């Protein structure tokens, strides 16, 4: 029984890390007033590129390239949302579509083979044909990983999981305890006032969007080399949108996002376990709906004005800022 609990917790953290990484960046973007709906597309690009680059140059290069791709895509979004002042939702959706199409194209066997050969001509034939790549090694933290039940669950993982722990703490600290965080939140709250107080609204929004892109790319890399190193077209399967939902559930707070991430990760894990045991053939579908339904309920709850104020929903989320009066 204890073994079973241990392994469920372990997978819960593994699943949850995916959501956590993606939503940490998104929290920053949304706190600055930018809704990055391109998350799903940036994640899948991260997954596809980490597949290709792990085979060609190894894990480190793969992670760097995935982050870079996320940043590049978020820059496109930033230009469209901040400078061109286009509808962020539609722009983000277009980026997601682009990511889904481009990743499927690049990782398609024949195309991938061409790319791999031009990246690294010395690759063996087997590496050109495979749908798999080596997974990131798991590292046990000495002492901590020996704690009964939770030790293995939290301290026997690959490096990206530990990155997510540290990132959550650091990003919470920056957001709520530093001047930079205050500027970021003020830009999402009331950009005109922030501007008059000398905060560079455009710069802050650019940086926040880029951070969300970088984390989305990292989440994609984690999905592939850290969790499920077997390529399937469209393998993010809406997980980017679940991360988007998680941002709302966490009410734009990095530490609460940790809890929410493991809640959603736990739902995923239980769903797979139930299927494994053949328990209630239909229940997995309803369990899988839970993250979406929980999000809708959260959205309804935060629509109440006094709750909104207490939580601190970014007031200017989704509204472009311009100095001209129009």
């Amino acid at each position, binding site marked *: 029984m204890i073994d079973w609990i241990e392994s469920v917790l372990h997978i819960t953290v593994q699943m949850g890390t995916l959501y956590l990484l993606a939503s940490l960046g998104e929290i920053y973007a949304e706190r600055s007033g930018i809704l990055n709906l391109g998350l799903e597309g940036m994640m899948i690009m991260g997954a596809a590129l980490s597949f290709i680059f792990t085979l060609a140059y190894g894990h480190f290069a793969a992670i760097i390239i995935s982050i870079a791709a996320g940043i590049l895509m978020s820059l496109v979004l930033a230009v469209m949302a901040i400078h061109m002042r286009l509808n962020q939702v539609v*722009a983000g*959706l*277009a980026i997601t579509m*682009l990511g*889904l199409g481009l990743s499927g194209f690049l990782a*398609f066997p024949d195309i991938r083979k061409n790319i791999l050969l031009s990246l690294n001509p010395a690759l063996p034939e087997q590496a050109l044909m495979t749908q798999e790549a080596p997974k990131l090694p798991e590292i046990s933290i000495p002492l901590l990983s020996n704690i009964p039940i939770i030790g293995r669950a939290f301290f026997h993982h690959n490096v990206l999981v530990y990155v997510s722990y540290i990132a959550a703490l650091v990003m919470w600290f920056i957001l709520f305890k530093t001047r930079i965080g205050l500027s970021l939140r003020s830009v999402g709250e009331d950009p005109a006032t922030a501007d008059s107080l000398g905060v560079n609204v455009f710069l802050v929004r650019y940086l926040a969007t880029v951070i969300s892109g970088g984390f989305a790319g990292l989440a994609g890399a984690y999905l592939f080399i850290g969790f499920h190193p077997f390529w399937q077209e469209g393998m993010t399967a809406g997980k980017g949108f679940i991360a*988007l939902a998680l941002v709302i559930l966490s009410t734009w707070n990095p530490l609460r996002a940790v809890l929410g991430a493991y809640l959603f990760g736990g739902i995923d894990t239980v769903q797979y376990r139930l299927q494994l045991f053949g328990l209630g*053939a*239909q229940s997995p579908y309803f369990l899988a709906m839970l993250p979406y339904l929980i999000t809708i309920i959260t*959205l309804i709850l935060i629509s109440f004005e006094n709750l909104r104020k207490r939580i601190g929903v970014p007031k200017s989320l989704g509204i472009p800022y311009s100095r001209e009066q129009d």
Partner: protein
Amino acid sequence: MSRKINTPFGVIRIERRAAYPRHIAVLTTLLAVLLAFLAVAIILVLIGIDFTAAFTLIVESFTKPELMLNSVKQAIPICLSALGLGIAFKMNFWNIGAEGQIYVGMIASTGVVLLHAYYGLFDEHVLLPLMFLTSFALGGLWCLLPAFLKAKMNVNEILTTLMLNYVAILLVDYLIHGPWRDPGGYGFPLSIKFPDYAKLLFLFGDTAYTGLLMAILGAAAAYLIMDHSKLGFEIKVVGQNLNVARYSGIDVSKVIMFGAFIAGGLAGIGGLSIVSGIIGRLRPRASPGYGYTAIIVAALAGLNPWLIVLASIFFGGLLTAGDVLQASMNIPKTVIQMMQAIIFLFILMGEVFKRYRIVFEGKSGGDMP
């Protein structure tokens, strides 16, 4: 409102346009499509693929009759959903849930067929009209929920409609893996095949013609609603200025809910056109994202119903071309998805040129800010 940028070649001024000139809209749209083709061509060349052969195949899917029929078939659900989106977007109701509304439309029409097949309910002749009715109603209700939440409680409709997409897709997964699975289907997750009288064959006995008729009727309905009805007028006012709408006595929340119901209903019929037109039965993931493609189509057509019909046939053709490319040249059909996304991005960026005008003033010298 104008901004000046000094360059070594003179002053460039960016001015806000007073009105959207129509020729600019047409020009930017065509340019967006052209640039997207160019971008894809460049990518193909970089990968080392003979792009002229690929583009010949793409053109053929618009010229060969049998491929054209397939294109039209694929265009039907896109077109109907996009017509609905055209109405929703006009009132700034950002419904990105057409995909989910398509799925519940499929549930509704399949449900009616199964009631008929398993329990002998409904006469053969009323079956199809009943399917239209229920899929419209259920699609409409699926869109009404977020509209209600937006109108009454100011809940962001973008996120709710998006989340409901996944709920609808999972609902279909459940039904088709569970109670609706064909008992004689060897355990495959498929419903029974629809009988011919429950299929869209009433024009020339072909789904493509029947669907084309539906698309044109849908466009006519959308045109009449938007340009010749009180509701359409109110929708436009709500979309242009919420305060004006309120002061002039329009019941804003009622308009939003009505408009959303119609929008979702049209997408629901789009779902019907998949199960009783393209596939002839229900299966999981029956829509490869038609509801999302519809968003691009609505944007490409500038929300005009007649242009939506044309644009969706164009996109249906691209989807067909994708299948052909993969089958005959081993180029993944995701290349088409990529092309559509690039078209979308360029159209969006083109909005800027509709809103602003760039004036080149040459070297004037004295006119410094």
